[in-house]
């Protein structure tokens, strides 16, 4: 089973292949397009992440002790970054998600998307993913 930090490294390695920003963004846009659409019922306001210029919906469920994330966004670049976050975090046990350091975003040069003005929403997104994991860890511990 690949760990979260292995997956982070995998993404970093992939992005090292791009020598110009346009290839990188084309790739992110492709990732955005290929993220499977989520059920319309999860596109309600209560699943919205606050603070994004683009809207981001996030939903999570437990499967065999692992957290599975589902998300969508109305902006493609945002959706592509969300797809990366899901690829890295989805399918892991709550404890591992809670402790993930997520430095890969910085390493692949997307930090600007986490800045205050762009969308602290993506930071909120990571926070919300961790909060889901935390909530699941509490319920499964009972």
């Amino acid at each position: 089973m690949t760990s979260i930090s292995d997956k982070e490294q995998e993404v970093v390695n992939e992005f090292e292949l791009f020598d110009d920003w346009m290839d990188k963004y084309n790739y992110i846009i492709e990732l955005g397009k290929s993220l499977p659409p989520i059920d319309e019922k999860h596109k309600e306001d209560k699943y919205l992440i606050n603070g994004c210029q683009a809207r981001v919906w996030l939903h999570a469920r437990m499967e065999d002790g692992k957290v599975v994330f589902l998300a969508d966004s109305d902006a493609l670049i945002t959706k592509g970054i969300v797809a990366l976050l899901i690829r890295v975090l989805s399918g892991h046990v709550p404890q591992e998600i809670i402790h993930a350091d997520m430095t890969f975003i910085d390493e692949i040069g997307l930090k600007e998307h986490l800045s205050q003005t762009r969308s602290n929403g993506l930071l909120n997104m990571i926070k919300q993913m961790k909060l889901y994991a935390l909530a699941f860890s509490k319920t499964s511990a009972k």
Partner: protein
Amino acid sequence: MTIQADSIRKAFPILSRTVNKRPLVYFDNAATTQKPQVVMDRLMHYYSYENSNIHRGAHFLSQQATEAYESARATIRAFIHARHNHEVIFTRGTTEAINLVAYSYTKKFVKPGDEVLISAMEHHSNIVPWQIACQELNARLKVIPMNERGELDMEAYAKLLTGKTRIVALTHVSNALGTVNPLKEIIRQAHNMDIPVLIDGAQAIPHMAVDVQDLDCDFYCFSGHKMYGPMGVGVLYGKEEWLNQMPPYQGGGEMIREVTFSGTTYNELPFKFEAGTPNVADVLGMESAVKFISHLGHEHIAAHENALLEYALSQMEQLDQIRFIGTASQRTSVISFLFKDIHPYDTGTILDKLGVAVRTGHHCAQPIMDFFEIPGTVRVSLAIYNTKKEVDILIEALKKVREMFG
């Protein structure tokens, strides 16, 4: 003299820098304009040679600083053609100027059940202060609607003016749509019913000559930083009849005549509304910006910007599937749009990568976005230093966006 943007650009050091390894194309002027060297020199000069607290010390520097500060007030009076120097109150910006009136005017003149009238195209700074005041006073906030082009519905306006209306607060130019409102007619109708009018001039003042006596508005607010001046400083113009009747907004030094623990008598205008040590350096910087604008001449500025606006619109129209938000017959310097079904954030991100700075989002005017049922727009806003060449770069960049998201 016509405007030679190329030579004007030399006055703005920041315009020669690069962003993302490309020459900066700055099209976010409605958010804030860049500053010419003269403005920055003025700030440096003040702190280097003139710095002193004003209206207080009897010493040389204090007197000199006081004179400079009051002379800036006179320059600004002339710039907007106010009747008196003391009708020019220095504030932190448009936001503080509106808050001042929304607090002091309503405190004195608005009773429960009264109405405050704003419009559907206001910036949040001309909505929220009135909402707060209305809540506090049990008054009602009414809204003049607009049409699909982003023009005010003047018939509805006439009906909304009632015996209960205590003030009309309206933007001169919409920051999200570029609409220029027919102020004279609006003010005339309100005055027929003895209702004063406050104008949010933040987006008008850098682009057109403003004559507050000719408009006959009761209050006019603007920010230094949107007219080539420093941040953190702005102006409230108010007719003295109103300002004299209004209670102070903040208490402190400078705004008093006499203080005892049993009570205080207030100073006269303009000091009554300038509590505490003012932002002297930035006021002087704003004065330099005003001189800079006056030197270029408003008619030349408008000619250059309008020609550029038309050029940009005609070039953009040729792009496939561009939807302009705000198509008023009277407009200036702002182009709000959506490109195909591409999210504004996506468009903005790629433009930024290509060195083109635009604003994306709701532009602090969420009700406008709700009206058009869109998440936001991409906004290109022009200034005197922008060029056709930069518009061409924008068009090429938009083509790239289309390619990437196609």
